């Protein structure tokens, strides 16, 4: 599966770069700067959970675009144009916000219960964007549940892979900037570029894992 995702990455490199320039990099920059703004201006009461929710959204919102690219490639359909991919992002933004907000609130509240609700809703948060394209709302939930039943414990392995690759590559790249006098903009732009490079690969891999292997 890793080999196939590398091939897809290679084949659509120009398209991925265009989509990154139009959507992924501005979106990541916006989320990073809004986190910084909130951290700076809300002095009285901080919301650390809100910042983590922003980071989660940053990954989740980008999933439907690259999922469409992957399925079009593997099913042998006509390859989508950049404009179609951008439109997919705008169409599914509201639905993703609607589903992920309650799930995230459950995850935050469930920390008191020995992290069990947190783990379950973390798995749901990772899986549901891959089925958001389905027009029927009930079908989205059903397919998410079936994947959760099939993969059960290995979902958490995927979750760890997604989180740790980002942290690893980000910290490795930060070593290069450690000796300079860097400011907030350098870190933000670095973060956005790392997102643009890694997310397509992760999403190609996860799409093949979830939606195509029946």
């Amino acid at each position: 599966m890793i080999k196939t995702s590398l091939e897809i990455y290679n084949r659509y490199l120009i398209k991925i770069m265009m989509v990154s320039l139009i959507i992924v990099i501005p979106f990541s920059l916006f989320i990073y700067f809004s986190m910084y703004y909130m951290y700076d201006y809300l002095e009285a009461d901080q919301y650390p959970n809100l910042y983590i929710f922003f980071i989660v959204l940053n990954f989740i919102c980008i999933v439907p675009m690259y999922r469409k690219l992957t399925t079009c490639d593997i099913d042998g359909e006509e390859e989508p144009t950049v404009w179609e991919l951008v439109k997919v992002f705008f169409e599914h933004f509201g639905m993703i916000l609607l589903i992920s907000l309650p799930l995230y609130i459950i995850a935050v509240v469930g920390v008191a219960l020995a992290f069990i609700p947190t783990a379950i809703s973390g798995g749901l948060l990772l899986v549901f964007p891959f089925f958001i394209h389905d027009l029927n709302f009930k079908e989205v939930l059903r397919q998410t549940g079936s994947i959760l039943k099939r993969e059960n414990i290995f979902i958490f392995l995927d979750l760890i892979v997604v989180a740790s690759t980002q942290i690893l590559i980000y910290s490795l790249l930060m070593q290069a900037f450690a000796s300079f006098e860097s400011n907030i903009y350098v870190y933000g732009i670095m973060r956005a570029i790392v997102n643009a490079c890694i997310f397509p690969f992760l999403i190609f891999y996860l799409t093949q894992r979830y939606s195509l292997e029946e």
Partner: protein
Amino acid sequence: MFNFRGFIQTIGVSLIITMVYSFIIGFFNLMSVEWSIFTTFIVSYGSVGVFAPLWNRQTPYFAAFLSAVVLTVLNLLFSIIVLRIQVLAKPDIVNENLFSSTTFTMLIAFLFMQINKRIERKKS
């Protein structure tokens, strides 16, 4: 039939447009505070008025009304929970807020429907 997915899409796209617009306005410091609030209001609820009839062909006005109410309530909740402004302490402001946003959205939706009808008539 009321199309739930179109309704959610409307709110999402309107949120994105509001974010982008207010980010640009704030980043380049283009206008004074009053004007930036006013134009943000026009952009966000105007986009709701345009997109709600577009994705809810059968119940355009109800969709526009409901989207405007939901967006206003979201604004109020955000200002209460995150910014700690006690909005609900003054009922007049809430009333004015709901009234102005729904009226403006319905107006834009009505205009959009009229223009759309005329274009379709010209095509046929």
